[in-house]
């Protein structure tokens, strides 16, 4: 059994569950370290002693080689999962990550629903996961330094994004955490801008939000800077505020505190400098792992706690529609000594 499956089986024991059915591809990849090519190609049934993998025959040879701890069953019929567990009493699935049709079959077969259970299980990272995430973060941060030097006026947002992506790949990145957001000028005011054909001009703001994956694990980083030497005074002032807010919020992270305290503190910090927080139109950060957005959420209404060995971003931003936006983001891991930056 690999480390994560063992940990998951421990969790089942703690919850007095005899079986848990996992139907979602990213979670299956997380637990098994095996990647199923299509989202509906496998179900996982974890019991306290065995882990059954229901899949197509096409995968058998590869699974046997790479994940020999899985007991293979050639079927993708959810009824076969139900049959296998017919004698077990305490069994469950996560309704937030179960397709409706399969979920309905499991529910009828006596499975309980345990919302968000799988996300909770993925929140605290193992040592080997942390190593992989640190590597992804390091590649992204190094790629940025090279990219910044190669960005030129006349280049479009799309071309720039492709350049950054190819640098990440050369440094060992394996795909993207999400579509790279590269914004020039007034486009920086849209936090979810889609890179366009707009070309870079001298003396305007640039914002790039990006990250590569390694072995399926994400990294996430945002940098804002002024392209050219005639920096707008207002822009510089707000940039400094954002950077200070970011650094300040990071010092507050501690084991077992509510994630939203960081979000609130960041907004208060901005308001002390002037009432800026109304232009801070998104949350302070989010957890990440195999998914780019997962627990803990550092948002005003979040009830999540920060836990040691959880990984999350801190990314304050200010947006002025039609003018510009600024965001500064790093990925952190929470250690007993506080938040440690990974994107460097």
């Amino acid at each position: 059994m690999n480390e994560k499956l063992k940990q998951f089986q421990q969790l089942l024991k703690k919850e007095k569950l005899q079986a848990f059915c996992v139907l979602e591809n990213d979670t299956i990849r997380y637990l098994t370290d095996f990647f199923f090519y299509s989202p509906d190609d496998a179900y996982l049934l974890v019991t306290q002693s065995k882990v059954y993998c229901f899949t197509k025959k096409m995968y058998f040879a590869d699974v046997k080689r790479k994940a020999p701890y899985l007991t293979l069953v050639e079927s993708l019929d959810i009824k076969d999962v139900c049959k296998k567990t017919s004698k077990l009493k305490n069994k469950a699935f996560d309704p937030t990550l179960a397709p409706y049709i399969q979920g309905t079959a499991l529910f009828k077969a006596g499975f309980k629903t345990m919302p968000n259970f799988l996300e909770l299980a993925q929140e605290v990272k193992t040592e080997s996961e942390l190593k992989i995430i640190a590597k992804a973060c390091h590649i992204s941060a190094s790629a940025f330094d090279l990219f910044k030097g190669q960005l030129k006026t006349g280049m479009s947002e799309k071309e720039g994004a492709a350049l950054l992506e190819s640098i990440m790949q050369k440094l060992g990145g394996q795909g993207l955490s999400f579509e790279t957001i590269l914004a020039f000028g007034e486009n920086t005011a849209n936090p979810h801008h889609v890179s366009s054909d707009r070309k870079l001009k001298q003396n305007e703001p640039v914002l790039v939000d990006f990250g590569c994956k390694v072995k399926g694990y994400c990294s996430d980083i945002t940098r804002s800077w002024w392209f050219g030497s005639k920096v707008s005074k207002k822009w510089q002032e707000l940039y400094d505020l954002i950077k200070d807010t970011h650094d300040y919020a990071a010092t507050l992270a501690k084991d077992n505190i509510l994630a939203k305290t960081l979000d609130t503190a960041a907004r208060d910090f901005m308001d002390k400098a002037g009432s800026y927080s109304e232009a801070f139109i998104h949350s302070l950060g989010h957890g990440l792992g195999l998914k780019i957005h997962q627990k803990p959420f550092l948002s005003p209404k979040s009830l999540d706690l920060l836990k040691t060995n959880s990984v999350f971003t801190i990314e304050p931003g200010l947006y002025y529609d039609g003018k510009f936006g600024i965001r500064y983001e790093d990925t952190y891991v929470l250690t007993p000594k506080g938040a440690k930056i990974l994107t460097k």
Partner: protein
Amino acid sequence: MRINSTKLKNLRNLLKRNNLEGLIVYDYTDIKYFLGEFFNDGEAVLLITLKNIIVIARSLYESPFKKKFKEALFISEDKNRPLALVEEAKKLKLKKLAFDANKEFYFAAKIYLKAGFKETSSLVSYLRTTKTEEELKLMRKATQISMTAFKNIQKYVKTGITELELKRKLEDEMTRLGGEGLSFDMRVSFGANTANPHHVCDGTKLTKNTAVLFDWGAKYQDYCADMTRSFWFGPNAPKEYTTILSLVKKAHDKAAKEAKYKMSGAQIDKISRDVIEKASYGKYFTHRTGHGIGMQDHELADISQINNEPILDNYCFSIEPGIYLEGKYGVRWEDCFYMTKKGIKQIK
């Protein structure tokens, strides 16, 4: 920006035929089909009614959305979007609404069922299966980029290069030619790795006299290309390799020639499969002959033994027979096609 009116009109006709006032659209690609690239996966729900479009999404999208799409109603919700949708439907006095049973998570579906909404299955997927002329154009462009890039990087196919390095060359070349991302995580396999139809590229180095397999495709404006080529690197191809390669090509070409309008996916699959089975390699052809393709690299219009649905006008699909000899080598040959009343046409 206006939301694509042909696609909306087609959906609304489909709603009327199904006696529905509106459809809940949650799937990432289905949303993209109507709005283009805008929302992250899982961060928005659409309700498309006969008259309106209602979008329920994370608050952070509010200002950019309102700026871009003026014809839709935006409701900001960070927590329980299905519940917010139900409330909005109540306000608008909409009753005959449906959700897609194949594309909803269990918890959301329960909320919709409690509100009295109906189950449907794959309405938008069916809509997406029939490509418009505009969509076919984009798929041709994606295919042309992919093929040209493949030809351009042949000079790097040399001993010593690794699978990952060669894959990167191909990806870079596709980007250079205007490709916008990849249809899927593509495969460059050497030697015995070619016997695994879903091998993940690694540091394996190319040596003289080994099998090589490329399975790749660029995206262009969200539309996918998908193709596979197999060849022997070096002068001394084993006899069996040559035999199975020509067998697979023959199976591919036969289906590409004989597939007809309204044949079922299973009938087309059989054309290829028979060629391989007659030569006694049937048990080494371990997958279906092809799959539907469009905005996703796998869509409806399966060319498989279990699909008895007819393949109709402007359905797009791959034909990709393969033979895999575990521990030795494998071959696959793939192109994409679309169906017309006059017969099958290659996307090229």
